[in-house]
């Protein structure tokens, strides 16, 4: 996970020079974008992200048909199908369950990646899984980002006992492994009725410490700047100083971390779903698909391959782009 690295690097300094006097020619969004354009790997990461986002917007592919004819996960769906659309049902006993992909023996191009244990088309489910992952990655990271920014900025700006209390609280949260913390959160807050939305909030909260620590370390240097001093002398309210001066000027490294953490979030929620505490069936989610595939590991190894590749590619896109962003924002590198 890129966490450890980005933390050590971002926490104590390299990115610290950004925005300081003397680097003005080398900062700003336009410069950053130009630098990323010149960085082939970052560009590749960006393309991957764009493709993933585009795929996540795809809806309505055959979903109705799929649900009716092949979705035998719940009896009532079958019953509904028999009642309303009998023409879509395959002949009894011929549901094509756990079909291998098209290029393997016994595969068919009707289901390019084969079918799952209920005979649902695997490619369709994989595409729908993109929605869940993108949603999870972005929303959970946003929760961590917003929560962490508020806590970190207040902590760094006021200092003193406020800082002590908030930082101890944040360290505490950081000490419990996110996966365990989120499962406990999901199960106990939902009253043993886990759902992806609890997982998203849990992961978001679990990552508040990471963002809070980073922004605090930035705020500590920004608050000593002349313009903050000037604003204070002019009688601007603390809240406005924080909002207009301190947070915007501390934000660049946080954005980099957020990009990298979208990947980490997707990874953790996939793990949660794999253990059965994230997305619940019949939702198409990569982690949940792997949970089922694990049970059919011997009978149909194909099922285990695709969701993992989907996760790998998505996270790799965010990692490449995040690394590129980090390099572009770090004046020390080249």
């Amino acid at each position, binding site marked *: 996970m890129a966490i450890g690295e980005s933390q050590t690097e971002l926490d104590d300094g390299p990115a610290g020079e950004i925005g300081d006097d003397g680097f003005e020619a080398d900062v700003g969004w336009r410069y950053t974008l130009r630098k990323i354009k010149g960085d082939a790997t970052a560009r590749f990461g960006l393309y991957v992200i764009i493709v993933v986002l585009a795929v996540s917007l795809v809806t309505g592919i055959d979903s109705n048909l799929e649900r009716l004819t092949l979705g035998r996960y719940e009896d009532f769906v079958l019953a509904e199908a028999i009642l309303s659309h009998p023409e879509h049902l395959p002949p009894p006993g011929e549901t094509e369950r756990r079909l291998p992909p098209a290029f393997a023996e016994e595969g068919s191009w009707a289901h390019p990646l084969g079918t799952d244990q209920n005979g649902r088309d695997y490619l369709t489910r994989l595409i729908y899984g993109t929605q869940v992952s993108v949603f999870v990655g972005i929303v959970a990271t946003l929760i961590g980002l917003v929560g962490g920014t508020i806590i970190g900025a207040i902590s760094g700006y006021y200092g003193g006992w406020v800082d002590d209390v908030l930082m101890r609280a944040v360290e505490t949260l950081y*000490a*419990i492994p996110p996966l365990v913390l989120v499962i406990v959160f999901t199960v106990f807050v939902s009253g*043993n009725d886990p759902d992806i939305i609890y997982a998203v909030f849990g992961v978001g909260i679990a990552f508040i410490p990471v963002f809070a620590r980073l922004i605090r370390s930035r705020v500590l240097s920004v608050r000593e700047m002349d313009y903050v001093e000037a604003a204070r002398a002019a009688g601007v309210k603390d809240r406005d100083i924080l909002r207009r001066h301190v947070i915007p000027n501390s934000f660049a490294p946080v954005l980099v971390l957020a990009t990298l953490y979208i990947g980490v979030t997707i990874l953790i929620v996939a793990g949660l779903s794999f253990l059965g505490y994230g997305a619940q069936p019949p939702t198409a989610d990569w982690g949940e698909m792997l949970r089922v595939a694990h049970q059919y590991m011997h009978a149909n190894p194909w099922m285990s391959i695709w969701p993992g590749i989907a996760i790998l590619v998505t996270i790799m896109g965010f990692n490449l782009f995040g690394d590129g962003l980090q390099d572009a924002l770090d004046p020390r590198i080249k």
Partner: protein
Amino acid sequence: MGLLRYTIRRLLQAIPVMFGIAVITFILVNATPGDPVDYMVAEELASEELIAAIEERYGLDEPLHIRFLHYLGFSWILEALGVPGFQDSPTGLLQGDLGLSMYYDRPVSELMWTRLPPTLLLMISAFAFAIATAVPLGVLAARRRNKPTDHISRIVALVGVSTPSFWIGIMLIIIFGVLLGWLPTGRLVYPWRPPAHYGYTGYPELFYQTIRHLLLPMVALGTLQMATIMRVERSSMIESFQKDYVTLARAYGVPERTIMRKHAFRVSQLPVITLVGLNLTSAIGGAVLIEEVFAINGMGRLIIQAIGTLDYQLVLGTTVVIGFVFVIGVIITDIAYAYVDPRVSYGEER
């Protein structure tokens, strides 16, 4: 300030964090709507007497703050204040008593002691694998910067940080277990058990089997660690190769190997040490998943089982202990850091 005083100070600093871990976990576990007892007793069997008896046995009939004080092991304060109850089990967290598991009806600490060794075996071997592969590869990549070796190692690192460990585990099982049939696909053989327990002829076979069983989960859990360590090792080595004293040593004609050994390598290990400490949490999370994939009965599976059965005390105990282990792990890495780097001042860190 000496190393000893530094150690003591770090330990003291950890106390509020450990207390906080207990508070957070306690609040979370108690956030559940309804009562743990509701989940324990089937609805048809639930009678008022039964529920009352269970609540009394596990101390659930007391208000939350009193239960928390009791859980921490401050029963004597309660007694001094004249709050009744809890005479039957006056110990708590402070005394190393984590309460009674509702599902197993055994002390939580006893359950954890039986489940901890497999997890430790798994995690230590995963970190050993990660360090043993990542450090040489990182050094090599740094020395051949922007050459094919470097690019390959960067790709490996990138894929490593982007791949879910449990998926690597599943793939390894499919390839080496199912398709090739070379390695066992689940459970571990524990080297501390007598060989006869598994029907082996002697210790050599026992150790051989231990390694065979450990290989796949070790790689699955260690890959992420390997990737992150390799990235840091590489950038750290590149940085120290660019230091003035390295340039100076080169100018003096000091052999490259000596520069590596004496000037560049040791300093470059500092960020790696920090990273290993910070990565403990992700490794524990990974261990939960890997134990599930490989059916290893360690701590991770214990937590998952505890959550699955809503075994309130067990969830509380395992989470709190894991948090403590992490805090202690970070302190140990901090101390190791101070030990390796003579420049670290013990006075002000952070």
